[in-house]
């Protein structure tokens, strides 16, 4: 029981830490694409850590099959839907000419598809 509690607490801590990192990144980053990268951080390990924790909590502490299985289904759904959404936003941003910080001088999409 105490071991389970430690594992679940560790999963919650991991989720909280990566969510904090993602939010700080979204607020601090200088352009839209880098903000997108940081927001992926929130959606992957931030959300998946907490959902893994609630799934373990549902299975072993509450003895409720529904909560455990539904947590896993929500996690899988986030895992499948999040990349599609961020891919769509990235392409839309590049197509409508959002400012991109080009520090490395390497913009091969802009070179191949001039506006």
């Amino acid at each position, binding site marked *: 029981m105490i071991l389970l*509690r430690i594992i*679940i*607490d560790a999963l*919650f801590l991991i*989720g*909280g830490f990566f*969510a*904090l990192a*993602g*939010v700080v990144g*979204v*607020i601090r980053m200088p352009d*839209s694409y880098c*903000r*997108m990268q940081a*927001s992926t951080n*929130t*959606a992957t390990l*931030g*959300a998946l850590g*907490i*959902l893994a924790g*609630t799934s373990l*909590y*549902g299975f072993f*502490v*509450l003895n*409720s099959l*529904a*909560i455990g299985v*539904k*947590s896993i*289904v*929500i996690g899988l*759904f*986030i895992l499948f*839907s*999040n990349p*599609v*959404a*961020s891919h*769509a*936003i990235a*392409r*839309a*941003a590049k*197509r*409508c*000419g*959002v*400012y991109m910080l080009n520090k490395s001088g390497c913009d091969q999409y802009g070179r191949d598809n001039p506006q």
Partner: protein
Amino acid sequence: MTGFNVELTITAAFYGLLCIALLYRVIKGPHAVDRVIAGDSIDSMTVVIMALFGALSNRAVYFDMALIVSLLGFISTVVISRYLEGRS
């Protein structure tokens, strides 16, 4: 008393504070794309808060609502980005 009420409550409150912090980017964001990104993050964090609250109150109904919220967030993000793409 079988639950871990303390951890669940603290984590949910922490996520709520992070959502409020992200509202800065929603209000200030220079372009619509920034607002969409911040809104998408807020959406996925709302899903997490709902899951935590469902585990706290031991009711599976909140998980159904969490799935629907995440579905609506995904659809609205894709629709807004299609709209922005067509506008240029």
